[in-house]
């Protein structure tokens, strides 16, 4: 067992690291879904834009300025998207809002395509994060080790925010019952805005970690991580933050095991790597059918 772990440690390390990044993105999905019942398809693209902004900022500014600036810009972007694309549709059918989300996703990708010229941009290597270290004979980047700890720290912070602050209470109230909380005098628009801003902030942090690991940004580099993070959110039970985090880690690890399957289990030549993305969806469908509420989700009752 120890020997097995030792030989395949590098797969697990990359799995845990990418899983942590999925988890951070997944929180954004799960919070927004919890409140608005909206799959925010544009969230993955916000993540990508954060990466792209970093590429441009860091070419002229030192990291001490560009990193906070990236976080601020991404938060502003999240706020703006909600105000422009979702707020006007608050009373529209849910499908219209979802279509609007798809439209925003399309717009962000095309904007990135136009302004970045359609080529992959090389992500700057952030000095300490990008350095190589050796753990138990496996070489990897510092960021791989940092990610899970940072993720968990952020989640704890977020849980404290939701449990013990006024705004957190408002968030919980809105996600429990949208209309009643409005009647109770909760300023629903600011709660929603703050939710989007928190989600975007975490996506920006995830983009710092993710792109430090996989140092190239293209207009579509947000869509796959975005979808996978969404699956993670569904897996954990949509609306549940710890669920999203656990979902993220599981998907990240499984994905890397599939990619490394030939080497880990010694079964070469079946082309399983083809399924490294599709697996996530198979996983999703099985969960939706077996336990639609996910690991920690609350049961919802349809009102007639």
């Amino acid at each position, binding site marked *: 067992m120890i020997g097995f772990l030792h030989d395949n440690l590098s797969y697990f390390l990359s799995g845990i690291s990418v899983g942590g990044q999925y988890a951070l993105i997944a929180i954004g999905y799960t919070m927004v879904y919890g409140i608005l019942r909206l799959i925010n398809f544009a969230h993955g693209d916000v993540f990508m834009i954060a990466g792209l902004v970093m590429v441009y900022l860091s070419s002229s500014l030192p990291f001490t300025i560009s990193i906070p600036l990236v976080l601020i810009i991404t938060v502003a972007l999240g706020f703006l998207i909600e105000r422009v694309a979702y707020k006007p*549709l608050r009373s529209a059918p849910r499908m219209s809002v979802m279509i609007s989300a798809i439209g925003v996703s399309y717009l962000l990708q095309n904007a990135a395509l136009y302004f970045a010229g359609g080529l992959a941009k090389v992500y700057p290597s952030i000095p300490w994060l990008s350095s190589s270290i050796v753990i138990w004979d496996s070489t990897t980047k510092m960021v791989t080790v940092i990610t899970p700890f940072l993720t968990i720290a952020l989640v704890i912070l977020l849980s404290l925010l939701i449990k013990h602050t006024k705004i957190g209470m408002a968030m919980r109230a809105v996600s429990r019952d949208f209309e009643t909380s409005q009647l109770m005098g909760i300023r629903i628009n600011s709660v929603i805005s703050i939710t989007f801003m928190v989600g975007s902030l975490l996506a920006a942090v995830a983009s710092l970690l993710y792109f430090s690991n996989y140092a190239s940004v293209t207009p579509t580099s947000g869509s796959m991580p975005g979808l996978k993070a969404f699956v993670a959110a569904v897996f954990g039970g949509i609306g549940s933050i710890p669920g999203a985090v656990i979902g993220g880690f599981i998907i990240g690890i499984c994905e890397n095991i599939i990619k490394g399957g030939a080497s880990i289990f010694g079964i070469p030549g079946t082309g399983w790597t083809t399924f490294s993305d599709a697996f996530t969806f198979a996983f999703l469908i099985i969960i939706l059918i077996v336990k639609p509420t996910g690991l920690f989700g609350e049961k919802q009752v349809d009102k007639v």
Partner: protein
Amino acid sequence: MEKEKKKRLALIWAAIAVSYIVILILEMTLRPTSMLLTVLKKGAIYSLVAVSMNLLNGFTGLFSLGQAGFMLIGAYTYAILTMPSEVKTSESVYKYYQCFITFDTGVFIGLIAAGLMAALFAFLIGLPVLRLKSDYLAIATLGFAEIIRAVCQWDVLGPVTNGANLLRRYIDLTYVTIPFTDIPFPPTLFVFIVAGISILLIVLLINSSYGRAFKAIRDDETAAEAMGINLFRHKELSFVISSFFAGISGALLAMFQYTVQAQQFKSMMTYEILLIVVIGGIGSISGSCIASFLYITLSEWWLRGLDMGSFLGIDAPNLFRSGFRKLVFSVIIMIIVLFFSRGIMGDKELSLTRIKGFINKRGMKKGKKEAEA
């Protein structure tokens, strides 16, 4: 009343006949490579898939995002079946695999099989998935489309699907002949006939008692169930039929493109079709058709100048560079989604009276303005 209805029907048929004659004339006079014909062909193909999606989303209220997956199945079935057996065995397409299916069929069987295969998969996928609600259904169908794509690219299925590589040299539009002769079938007309018949069948279905049941489910599931409509059976029926036509449009797309590859059927393609449906108006067949032609014409033709340095006679290579077309296009889409969420047609259909009304309104306004001046 009855007479009026008959007259209207006759008019509609006449309009359709005229448009087909116009297409035939265009086909005879224009060069076969002219951009107009290209856009017409692709527009007709997208009309069919948009209408098939509208059947699900607009008429049955099932928010499905699996259209690209069913098109993929249709396209592959068609390509694999109609590829001449000598091509299959000559190693020029199946270069890295031993081809497994060594017979070939004609266009007609290929098209029908494409639809049937897509319908079969839809039936199987529908069994578990259709029990899900709204956005969960959307994401599950999206997931299935991705899984279909991955399976088609799998090495182990290489002898059938040519792995992840291109399929080509099947019977494409330039090789279609008029039955029992060697005369080439006018390609644009062929696409229009196939798409037209398919859309007609969907319209007939929507106006049948099944169609009314679909609409009842869309408007209120619980009420529909209370009235004795078998929810699951009708959902499954709508899903299977929609996929059947998505499969046929996939086959047409394969014919149009000359080559087909699983890679292109990404979720982005489904989004595009969804946007077409929204632009046209959810729940309007004619809206979907108009939107398809508009969408394809704009994105493939009229707005091309935005990418190529000069647009409307303005030369600005730094502004109009690669990607600008898509950016402008997505802004237009956002405007439509946000401000005109009912789309071009809403849930109404195009009819002579509406056109008349529209012209009259405009005419009156114009007259008013002139009078004021």
